[in-house]
């Protein structure tokens, strides 16, 4: 799928409006409760058939966002429209039915599979829950699925600990595919894998996307991976989206100073000495979000104005949004 095709389709699979997820921490007899603003007012769309990459450093809220979209963690406020239906309003049975359409693949291939269940039992249970195929065909359905993700059909009778990290991630992919979803959220799905295995899994994800007309939200801290797999890329910083644009335009001409710094920080084996924008200090704690633009404490361009006024995510050119007062 090329970016040109994505642009033509105006259908949005997912529309997210003002999504917020705050956590309360601390609190007690003499302490006031504090709020962690993990996800703070996100608004964006996911187009049918695209891969939307979300990048950001640890603590930027990208994983929380993924879980909030799936209602695994109830959002504090905001709306998530899936094919026009607000899923934040759903509960119980309706929600469980909808979960057939949206799946998630987690980072840690060791934590995301039940250690005491065979792969077959795990997948059959899901297939049975949603009555994907008649009872008689379940086993062969699951085995075909395992073969599709590059495992042997014998994997059906194996326990998770009998697989390597890459194979476990393939099992996770098979589990996500088992319910024939339309959207898969990949939360750092290849981050725990070695480079050579990572490439195998990335290729598999691409192949499956083409074959099953899937839509991906691909969350990762690794910009090269996101760049490779995505059609559009969103950059998050401290719970906010600071830039959102097509993959080629964001990599060629990043508009937000944070995005620029992020790109320049990646060690590049093809260049010897590249100019680097060194960021000062660390990401501030989400407990104590800076006033105004939340990037101003580390931004090389920051002015007094940035400390006071929070910039909105606005179009800098067609299909390229950025949240900065001084963007070119």
């Amino acid at each position, binding site marked *: 799928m090329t970016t040109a095709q994505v642009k033509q389709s105006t259908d949005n699979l997912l529309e997210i409006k003002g999504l917020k997820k705050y956590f309360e921490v601390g609190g007690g007899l003499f302490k006031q409760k504090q709020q962690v603003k993990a996800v703070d007012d996100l608004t964006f769309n996911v187009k049918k058939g695209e891969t939307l990459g979300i990048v950001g450093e640890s603590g930027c809220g990208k994983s929380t966002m993924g*879980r909030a979209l*799936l209602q*695994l963690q109830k959002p504090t406020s905001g709306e998530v429209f899936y094919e026009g239906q607000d899923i934040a309003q759903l509960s119980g049975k309706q929600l*469980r*039915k909808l*979960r*057939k359409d*949206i*799946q*998630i693949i*987690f*980072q*840690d291939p060791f*934590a*995301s*599979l*039940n*250690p*005491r*269940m*065979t792969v*077959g*039992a795990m997948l*059959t*249970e*899901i297939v049975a*829950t*949603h009555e994907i195929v008649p*009872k*008689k*065909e*379940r*086993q*062969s359905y699951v*085995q*075909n699925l395992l073969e599709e993700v590059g495992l042997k*059909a*014998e994997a*059906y*009778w*194996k*326990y998770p*600990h009998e697989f390597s990290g890459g194979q476990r991630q393939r099992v*996770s992919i098979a*589990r996500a595919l*088992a*319910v024939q979803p339309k959207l898969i959220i990949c939360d750092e799905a290849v981050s725990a894998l070695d480079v050579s295995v990572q490439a195998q899994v990335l290729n598999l994800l691409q192949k499956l996307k083409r074959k099953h007309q899937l839509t991906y939200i691909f969350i990762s801290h690794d910009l090269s991976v996101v760049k490779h797999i995505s059609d559009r890329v969103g950059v998050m910083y401290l719970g906010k989206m600071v830039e959102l644009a097509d993959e080629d335009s964001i990599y060629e001409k990043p508009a937000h100073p944070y995005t620029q710094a992020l790109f320049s920080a990646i060690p590049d084996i093809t260049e010897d000495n590249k100019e680097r924008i060194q960021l000062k200090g660390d990401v501030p704690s989400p407990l104590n979000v800076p006033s105004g633009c939340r990037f101003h404490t580390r931004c090389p361009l920051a002015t007094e104005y940035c400390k006071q006024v929070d910039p909105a995510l606005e179009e800098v050119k067609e299909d390229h949004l950025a949240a900065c007062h001084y963007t070119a």
Partner: protein
Amino acid sequence: MEQSQNLSVQKPKAQNPRLRMLKTMLERLLQNKLAVFGGVVTFLLIFTAIFAPWLAPHDPTEQNYSAVLQAPSIEYWFGTDNLGRDIFSRVIYGAQVSLQAGLISVGIALIIGVPVGLISGYYRGFIDEYIIMRMTDAMLSIPALVLALALAAVLGAGLTNAMIAIGLVLTPNFVRLIRGEVLAHREKEYVEAGKASGISDFSIILKHILPNTIAPIMVQATLAIAAAIIVEASLSYLGLGTQPPNPSWGSMLATGQGYLDSAPWIALFPGALIFITVISINLFGDGIRDMLDPKMK
């Protein structure tokens, strides 16, 4: 796992994962010498309890006034007590009572504790936080023996009531343990993945979380069996457990107390058996915990 006719791949016989898993677990258990020792002794005790009528050389309640307070001899291996009853036979019959007390009271604690812990831990909320947890706190703050004593006194003397009392006293430990395990597992990604796949809460609790808490439950259970035997012994010692003339290790210990100077064997043998039983069951429990650890391949 059902088999259908039109299988693309037949289930390989040698590859039955449950059998393989069981085999490696058994191998692991057999490598642990202390656990094997504990297991063998525990098995011998159960064997003794079941076949007590055939193993005991004398009737445990038969009084022989011509042989009172006799030291261990060929006729009376462990000696006789103040009423001339054979201590060896009484110890063998006492194993029945002690093992019953251990197994049944822990069974009661499991039947109540496991579901309460599972539900309480999975759903959290007001009832969990303010009712169940505070109740367990209250129960745990009273020494087990005192609580068992109070309950047994309310229920009335006798072995059955003693077992119910002990079971209730042990329950909060299980509730706390299981709730803690559930809290740890419900945050795990495989549970989230299950939820994301639309699996019902009931299934997640029963099929995904419970099997992963079996190992600590097993360990706690073996420890609790040992504790229950001691509490039953103590209750019998205080006259609230097994009623005379039926033998139990605890009541024998109580009798022996008065004769520690003149006839120490009366207290020595039941005391030693309580000690050995508790140690063996603990060792066996430790072995089972290691055996069930999925991280040990």
